[in-house]
């Protein structure tokens, strides 16, 4: 049984701190969906989970689960499961008894709670590990048991606070698959906190980007990458390309040239953003630019695993970055034509005041 979670203008200030951890966060997570809360360290994303779980009281605003304000309900009575970054398995209990914990404290007999727990142990593919001591588990197995333990309490909402960040990449992929299996089998509402964009897009239906205690955008994965609401979101999502200019009649005009933008873009000053993955790069060429393309010179090629990142310089010192598949078609100094597909181009407002960080630099990876 999954449940809807809504936050209404939730603010949280710790003690006498000058800086609130959360300011006016409103968020709606539909029943059975998976939302990732993405943000850099210290952005307040874990605080959101703790507020939903009931481990922290809100300073203002309210948390509503299935239409009920849960502000006055203690954490142990909310029916909201939570898995922390560290597995926190009880060292004095066996693997099976860890998973049986919620049933035991709920008053079930030892035998009944263990029988119940075995189902969840099977679900996380550790069926034969029940009798083991938790000290005998590997990091990945520990986190599986922690998830099984949370699920065994049959929570309508499962909160995951960076549960996979301590695991190596291969294990993390396994855990993402496990999360898919769990969603198919139990369909809890999942809210996952992460600082990893790839993880967020791998497991979640929606992503809520948070920074400095403020919710910047809550949207589908595709929209966050291709239609960021602001320059801050673009940077937090790892966007590298920002071209200042002016929108005139469906065209973004800048030293780069005239680039077609989405039809509903209002006229006036705006920053063109486009994902480096979306830019198509021609081989070294002497031909003229295609209709939605621009001509520049390769200034740098860097390798990222099998892929390469090319930086292309334009007149006026402008730079565009594009990700390239493996191959040998471009090299430093060669003249290339870049195509900016209109469906990947978007224009965001010029920020008032400073925006912290550089494009791509302070962004979470």
């Amino acid at each position: 049984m999954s449940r809807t979670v809504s936050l209404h203008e939730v603010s949280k200030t710790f003690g006498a701190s000058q800086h609130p951890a959360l300011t006016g966060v409103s968020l709606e997570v539909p029943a059975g969906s998976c939302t990732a809360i993405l943000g850099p360290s210290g952005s307040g994303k874990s605080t959101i989970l703790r507020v939903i779980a009931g481990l922290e009281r809100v300073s203002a605003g309210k948390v509503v689960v299935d239409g009920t304000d849960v502000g006055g309900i203690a954490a142990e009575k909310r029916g909201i499961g939570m898995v922390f970054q560290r597995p926190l398995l009880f060292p004095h209990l066996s693997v099976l008894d860890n998973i049986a914990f919620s049933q035991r404290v709920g008053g079930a007999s030892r035998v009944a709670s263990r029988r119940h727990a075995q189902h969840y142990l099977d679900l996380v593919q550790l069926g034969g590990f029940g009798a083991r001591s938790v000290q005998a588990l590997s990091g990945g197995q520990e986190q599986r048991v922690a998830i099984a333990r949370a699920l065994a309490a049959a929570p309508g909402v499962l909160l995951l606070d960076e549960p996979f960040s301590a695991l190596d990449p291969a294990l993390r992929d396994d855990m993402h698959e496990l999360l898919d299996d769990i969603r198919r089998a139990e369909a809890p509402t999942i809210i996952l906190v992460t600082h990893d964009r790839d993880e967020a897009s791998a497991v979640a239906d929606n992503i809520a980007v948070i920074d400095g205690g403020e919710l910047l955008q809550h949207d589908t994965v595709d929209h966050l990458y291709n239609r960021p609401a602001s320059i801050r979101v673009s940077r937090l999502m790892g966007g590298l390309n920002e071209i200042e200019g002016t929108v005139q009649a469906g065209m973004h005009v800048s030293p780069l040239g005239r680039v077609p933008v989405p039809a509903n873009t209002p006229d006036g000053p705006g920053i063109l953003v486009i994902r480096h993955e979306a830019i198509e790069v021609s081989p070294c060429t002497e031909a003229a630019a295609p209709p939605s393309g621009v001509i520049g010179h390769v200034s740098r090629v860097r390798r990222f695993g099998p892929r390469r990142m090319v930086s292309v310089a334009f007149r006026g010192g402008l730079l565009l970055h594009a990700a390239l598949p493996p191959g040998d078609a471009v090299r430093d100094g060669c003249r290339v034509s870049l195509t900016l597909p209109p469906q990947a181009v978007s224009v965001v407002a010029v920020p008032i005041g400073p925006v912290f960080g550089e494009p791509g630099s302070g962004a979470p990876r």
Partner: protein
Amino acid sequence: MTGLDLRRPGDPGSTLTLAHGRGRLLRVLSTTLVASWFLLPFAPLALWAFANQWSFPSTLPTEWGFDGLSSAIAQGALPALGTSLLLSLVVAALATPLGALAARALTFGTVPWPRTVSIALLAPIALPPFAAVLGLNVLLLRAHIPPEAGLVLVLVVMAVPYTTFTMRVAYAAHDIHYEEEARTLGASRWNILWRVHIPLVAPALSRAAFLAFLVGWSDYVVTVVVGGGEVVTLPLVTASMAAGIGNDSAVAILSLSAIVPPLALLALAGFAGRRPRTGAVQKTPNVGERP
């Protein structure tokens, strides 16, 4: 035979095994030395305990027997042993939870001026017990507190610094998130205390209780002054017999019997403090294993 000339650890002549063997020999030797350092003083005690007569210059007792034992019993050793055990257990039972509460409050910052409070809690260790107890005794007498209760009260105060310190070390390494996790699993406060908190700090609790027990077990000054002769413990009987002449074998018996309870408790604490390695699941077969 592959013809490879590889030398493996364990092969004859391997330097790795040699170093290992030498290290082990050193370890065994040093352990034996330390053990005998502790045990040697008990040899004459053990001999005296069963010596009816032992005259100079004989190396061993000249007449063996149980005179010492009967003399000790005649002097009230058995009720004194009982009183000592009861007193020490009561002191441990009171000082351990008090120390745990104080340590938890100090560690998790719910106490104003934690530094001052820590110093106040540790003060009884620094104070010479004689000075403190003489002053306190007047106060206890004026307040009409019965000597037994006064004795327990003062010994608990003297034991609390030890239990607090032991528990603070444990709480410094204690992760409060375990309790938060238990809450999200639906555990009430009582369940968290009983099923999570106490098991997690159990090794430290048993260490603290052992120290508090020792404070009560080995006390002499407070029992004499505050107990006012009403409470006769083993140290009091031992001291009074040791002050007399010709009681060597009875004193030896009393001293040896004073060692046994703490040793038994230490063994028990060591046993209880060990984490179960496999859990208790084996009791119900077919539940823990996939068929």
